[in-house]
């Protein structure tokens, strides 16, 4: 039995233009140590409604390990280069590009693996939640409750593409044609 909520949530605000010196930490985008076994690059570009890349956005991911297990290990903030915590933070560069070194998130019990992702940006009044699904397992993707509730174009906005060298590519569009599906819980 869940009792009614008693406290009104504090509203969110934009991260603004100057978050970099407040939020940066060493190796923030190295969820997995680069080139370690199983490490892949997850990268893409964040676009605005005119199709222009956003150079002052911030993407955070939190994902399970390759076997689908959720890490409860500390150390996301002080990387030791071997503990997998699942959490990473990346600032977009001047071309709107973000990238992480991480592992391919595993699914569980017939469910597809995905990264939970949050986007922040100057000009974006509050955070946006989304998911970045791993491509390939069409049966699991097809059975996913969220994906199966979407049309083909919306679904495509949530599923990464595998690059020829085995990495993952995923663009995020805040607005407009092929707008990324964002989530409320």
């Amino acid at each position, binding site marked *: 039995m869940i009792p009614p909520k*008693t406290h009104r*949530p504090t*509203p969110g605000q*934009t991260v603004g233009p100057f978050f970099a010196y407040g939020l940066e930490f060493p190796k923030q985008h190295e969820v997995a140590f680069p080139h370690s076994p199983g490490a892949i690059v997850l990268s893409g570009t964040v676009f605005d409604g005119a199709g222009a890349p956003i150079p*002052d956005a911030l993407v955070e991911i939190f994902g399970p390990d390759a076997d689908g297990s959720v890490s409860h290990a500390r*150390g996301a903030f002080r990387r030791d280069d071997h503990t997998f915590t699942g959490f990473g933070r990346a600032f977009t560069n001047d071309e709107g590009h973000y990238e992480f070194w991480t592992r391919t998130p595993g699914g569980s019990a017939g469910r597809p693996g995905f990264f939970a992702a949050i986007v922040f*940006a100057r000009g974006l009044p509050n955070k946006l939640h989304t998911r970045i699904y791993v491509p390939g397992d069409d049966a699991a993707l097809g059975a996913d409750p969220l994906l199966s509730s979407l049309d083909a174009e919306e679904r495509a906005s949530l599923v990464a593409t595998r690059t020829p060298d085995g990495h993952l590519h995923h663009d995020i569009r805040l607005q407009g044609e092929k707008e990324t599906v964002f989530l*409320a819980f």
Partner: protein
Amino acid sequence: MSRTPAAAPESLLAAPDQATQAEITREIAEAHAALAAREAAGESLPATAYDFPAYRSSVLRHPTKNPKLVDPETIELFSPAFGQRDVAAIESDLTLQHAGEPLGERMTVRGRLLDSWGRPLANQLIEIWQANSAGRYIHQRDQHPAPLDPNFTGAGRAITNDAGEYAFTTIKPGPYPWKNHRNAWRPAHIHFSVFGTSFTQRLVTQMYFPGDPLFALDPIYNSIHRQKDRDALVGVYDHDLTSPEWATGYRFDIVVDGPDQTYFEQEGDA
């Protein structure tokens, strides 16, 4: 991969139309009235409006579709784990990061991190960043002609204790000019970034100071359309937290929003 070169970030900071403050203030009032009417008609609206054109740089950066309501799944019901040792105690004192003392009004900000049921959230990371007492950010893209303070960076971190409490010692930030419209000034604020026990509770917000005359003029503060929600972002002056001959004190409690599933998450941790 993009083939469009990104505009230089500096050029994006200035809105092209440069409306007057009176025009922006009118747009804010009209947006608030329209949102209140939609709410009165039964629509459920988020506390912060994503589509708030008085904040000019939001025009091309907000989603136009409603978010999809989903049940959070495993990974979304957990959050990266933090502990007291992840942050050095000195990182919560922004006045001790350089050889000398920063200029300005020394202040303490203290508060509690709570979930939607009022339960304290222990061992969570809180990050803050802010302008100095002259309203200048150390960021290289902030080029407005106010002095940098060689003894103040303006970034701090803390981990909440077992009672969900955090405390920072800092310098009260100054109001800050920006280029949203002509003669645009942000009310003094401290940026806050917090984690909860579930990733869905992640929050980035801003804390303001009581009685700021710039509140009614600021499109970012007013992207929160209800007065009672805006009030929640104003720190409360607390004379009991003020220490003699040392620092003024403000209280700022933060409540993260969690779907019902997070109720059990926190119970499980206890």
